[in-house]
């Protein structure tokens, strides 16, 4: 860490006017967010609003066309993905992406990469450093597995896990590098109410006990309204509203974005005509 006192200390992540274009289509347009430390920050919006794209530009998959991303007060856009991970930003994926033919515990060991110091020479000669690190990281992996409730699965292949377990394994893998900031991309997608309650519990523990800041993309409004401190609503790549869950719930533009505006679609028109016809009878 640099010793210079950063200017933007009260926010762990800040974006300034970031714009991403995909050949004519502006996927993210002038989005400014400020994520406070140890908060649960949700990004919601209809499909194709640019939420995942926003994640991808934080973690460095996409190059931003203009604007800046600040992490703990330092600009991080343009640096490779692996160095973003080194800084303490981890993420999960919308469609689960585990290392499918590696075992569960190995997946978590991979997640710990940025915190390891031994190299190939250490590995060949089995130095003290290598053995100590290996032991520590395996212990930590076991603890993480226990934390997300997968301790019985350690040596299973990760592709053989059930769906919900794979989601939790992804979170455990993301925790491996001791993140300051965790980006969760639809962690509750495809879960039943019981499972998503457990996930809410897990996310709350991450914040309260492990002091990790969480940015969440989620479609399940119950989850979002329950746990978020702060919500940003994206639509067509633009930020249309921002605030606490109460503010968002009553925001006119958000309701429009989700339920459609005044202009009728063909389907709606047809449904209305049909209704009118019924009433006329």
């Amino acid at each position, binding site marked *: 860490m640099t010793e210079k006192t950063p200017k933007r200390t009260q926010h762990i992540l800040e974006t300034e006017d970031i714009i991403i274009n995909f050949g004519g289509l502006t996927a993210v347009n002038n989005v400014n967010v400020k994520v406070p430390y140890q908060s649960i920050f949700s990004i919601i919006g209809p499909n194709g609003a640019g939420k995942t794209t926003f994640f991808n530009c934080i973690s460095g998959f*996409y190059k931003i066309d203009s604007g*800046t991303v600040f992490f703990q007060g330092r600009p991080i856009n343009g*640096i*490779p993905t*692996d*160095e973003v991970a080194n800084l303490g930003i981890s993420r999960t994926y919308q469609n689960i992406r585990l290392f499918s033919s590696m075992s569960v515990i190995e997946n978590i060991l991979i997640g710990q990469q940025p915190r390891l110091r031994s190299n190939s020479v250490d590995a060949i000669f089995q130095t003290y450093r290598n053995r100590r690190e290996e032991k520590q990281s395996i212990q930590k992996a076991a603890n993480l597995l226990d934390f997300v409730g997968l301790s019985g699965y350690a040596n299973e292949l990760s592709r053989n896990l059930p769906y919900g377990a794979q989601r939790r394994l992804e979170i455990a893998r993301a925790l491996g590098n001791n993140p300051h900031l965790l980006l969760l991309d639809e962690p509750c997608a495809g879960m039943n109410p019981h499972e998503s309650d457990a996930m809410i519990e897990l996310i709350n523990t991450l914040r309260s006990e492990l002091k990790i800041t969480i940015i969440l993309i989620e479609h399940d409004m119950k989850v979002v309204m329950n746990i978020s401190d702060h919500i940003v609503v994206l639509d067509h790549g633009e930020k249309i509203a921002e605030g606490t869950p109460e503010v968002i719930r009553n925001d006119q533009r958000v309701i429009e974005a989700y339920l459609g505006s005044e202009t009728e679609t063909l389907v709606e028109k047809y449904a209305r005509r049909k209704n009118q016809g019924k009433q006329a009878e």
Partner: protein
Amino acid sequence: MTLNFFNPNKKKSSGVRRINWLRIIVGLGALAFLIYRAIILITRPTYGSVFWLSFLNTGLIVGGMYALIAIGYTLVYGVMSLINFAHGDIMMLGCFAGFFTFEAFDAWKIGDSNFMNMYPGLAIFLAFLAGTGVSMISGYYLEKIAYRPLRNSPVRLAPLISAVGASIFIETAAQLMFGATKKTYKNPPLLARGSGWNIEMGDGMIVITKTGVFSLILALILMIGLYIFVRKTKLGKSIRAVSQDKNTAQLMGINTDRVASQTFMISGVLAGAAGVMWGIHNGLFNHYVGFLPGIKAFTAAVLGGIGNIPGAMAGGMILGIVESVGPAFLGIDFQLKDVIAFSILIFVLILKPSGLFSKNASTQEKV
């Protein structure tokens, strides 16, 4: 350089746009060397302009053949993301088919003369028909036997290994069947090798052979035909659709299996034509004839941006020209033209990895 040799995770960097020093150094170095050679050649000319033109002539002819083969690689890569390693061998089969057709016509006596002398045009046409037909059929069966069962293989490299296996099989089978000795094409008198036009130019003359002109024109016609085919026909459109997005194409009702085998047949036709041209123009050939043109054509496809059809055509032409002009330009032995061809590949991958003619600069993957 962003390499810390012993520990990749030690460095903490802050965000600024990186400059790829490797790219700049290599690019500037290569440019400087080329300028240096150009200055030397201008101040102390080793070859007259006639030589340069005849190098260019050779390059264009070879380039046309490379381009035809390269299109096959690019088409297959686009549709199946597979390097069809046996493509050069398919070209070789076409070459053999043309050879046997000519031999048969030569042996077919009609009165005093033989078929080849009486109907040379028809003989050439039928030889090309045989060459393209054999290559087309072998392309079809190659896909069916060696690649289709591996479409959803859990091992990513499986199709490629299978392609290598197919290549070895075809090559050695041809060697055993037809013998390892070099054979000579019997050209019909219309396209006798070596005959052509001599154009006087100042201090020398350029020899433009009939076979060369014929090959180049035929290659250009085939390329234009293929381009129109891919743009206008239904099959061409489905090939393009599959190479854009396989799953979506499947959802739109395109039978990707059929498109794949048709793609193999088209690329086989082009390779077969190139094979017969190779035989007619160069004369000597054996079972090994497809190997070097094959990998060079692949280089050409990468040069033009793999998956990009006009790119492959241009890449083939450029490679052919550079390969024949290069040794003289750099002042080295002509034996080393292969070295030049492959060095270009490495330079292109350093300087512009997506190929010279591709539009999307970075190969981004959606997460």
